[in-house]
């Protein structure tokens, strides 16, 4: 199971009412559970090459309204391009996890066709998570950040 597959599972949990997913593959098992925010609960088994997922047991219960989830906002890519966390190679990143941002603060750059496009926060709040790595190609709608609005 590689990082890409794990990320896809996290995205799935985040976008639906799924509470928990447990997968087993070649003796490796992973359980991902929602509690406020998706967490990797356990990862057992030895490292191995990734293979097609063979079994999914998901419990599709609706999350209760009174859960203590904060209303995290997902910042999605508005374009197709390459995601950069800093204005230039070697420079400090625009934001780090935990940073406070204002509406309009530049979060990252998406480079498309040699043009650098600054992506700004739409709300004020705190950077909860950075979901993509520096230099990753991203598609339209791809989740980039989770912001915790004030």
């Amino acid at each position: 199971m590689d990082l890409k597959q794990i990320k896809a599972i996290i995205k799935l949990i985040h976008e639906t009412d799924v509470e928990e997913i447990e997968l087993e593959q070649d003796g490796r098992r992973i359980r991902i559970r929602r509690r406020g925010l998706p967490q990797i609960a356990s990862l057992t088994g030895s490292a191995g090459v990734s293979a097609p997922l063979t079994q999914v047991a998901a419990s599709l219960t609706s999350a209760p309204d009174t859960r203590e989830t904060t209303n995290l906002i997902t910042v999605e890519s508005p374009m197709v391009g390459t995601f950069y966390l800093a204005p230039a190679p070697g420079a400090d990143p625009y934001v780090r996890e935990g940073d406070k941002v204002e509406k309009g603060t530049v979060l990252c750059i998406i480079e498309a066709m040699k043009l650098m496009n600054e992506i700004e926060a739409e709300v004020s709040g705190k950077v909860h998570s950075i979901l993509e790595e520096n230099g990753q190609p991203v598609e339209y709608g791809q989740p980039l950040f989770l912001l915790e609005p004030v």
Partner: protein
Amino acid sequence: MFSKILIANRGEIALRIIRACRELGVTSVAVYSDADAKSLHVLSADEAICIGPPQSAQSYLNMPRLISAAEITGAEAIHPGYGFLAENSSFAEICDQCGIVFIGPTAEQIRLMGDKVKARETAVAAGVPVVPGSEAPLGSAEEAAHLARRVGYPLMLKASAGGGGKGMRLVHSATGLGQAFSAASAEAMAAFGNPALYLERYISPARHIEIQLLGDQAGAAVHLGERDCSIQRRHQKLLEESPSPALTTDLRAKMGEAAVRLARSVHYRGAGTVEFLLDGEGNFYFMEMNTRIQVEHPVTEMVTGIDLVKAQIRVAAGEPLALAQEDISLRGHSIECRINAEDPETFVPSPGRILELRLPGGPGVRVDTHVYAGCTIPPFYDSLMAKLIVLGDTREEAVARMLRALGEFEIQGVKSTIPLQKRILSSPDFKAGRVTTRFLESVLV
């Protein structure tokens, strides 16, 4: 050969191109809008990139997003399919400037054939008969009247800068010309920002006969015979067949040679189609040239045995044409019926979820489709769901085979034009091969 191609299209043609890539060992990249996330072309491609919201302007027509998608996936070439940006010379140029191969003709060739007046001039220069008419845009109604005395009535006034029926007027005699000229000119100005008109003799009844061409980068060009596309509604084709019941071997050779002359005169690259009108006396006239792969290309593939999409990719990769004219022959008879998600009587589009789907099969039956049971046909794009193509030894067998296949074809959840196609195939005039561009009116009445 390319190692990776991005398909700048959707639906059945995107799937068609992916299939050709797969057979050539080329990695395919699909692009999709939010509305097409579960579309079959996305699921079939080796890689897929979401490029925007459902609106075409922000997805399939959005050049920066398409180029960006090619860049981040490392695609060396883009296949534009048909429609969307397939005949957009700016897009072809931008691909060029970004070092991406545009699988199709050059930007210059697209521009040339896209200008209706210039295309006519090119045809005349290549010795291809054109519909009698004006060689240049008309300066005034008086000039039109003067020319009309030579060209004859009835005639069509058409917009130089346009198409799609706008800025067009049918004129039956000299008395109606002045008024028609003003009206058409004003309409052309409003629709295309250019009031210029030209005129052509109106040929009716006529058959719409198009010749499939292939040209390579070394300057060789061949034709792959004709398709008869006379059955149309509001300039949209419903059914196509090859060979045409109206063509003799001699006429086919003449029309084919004329089309190849035109292609050679501009060093045409890739697949293209020259459209002719054929009147009742065996005279053919150049109408226009389409610089793309066409919806109805499978009909030609069936009777020639040649894979046109693979040929396009090979030409774009710099390979010379594999076949010479003497190697190409038409064998058997092929018919294609377009199956649209529309009401078969009112033609109102019928998007929605396909609940059940049963495709026809058996000998000589081919179905090109991107739909599957459980898929949703979005309301944002065209209504073409599937192309049903048959091949028979004779035209009779092809007609019988198509009727059988239409009978096996079941779609539940959305309306389809299958009932209309059955009526067309059952009509005595169609069975007798008596079809002109007026045919559909008589069936629909």
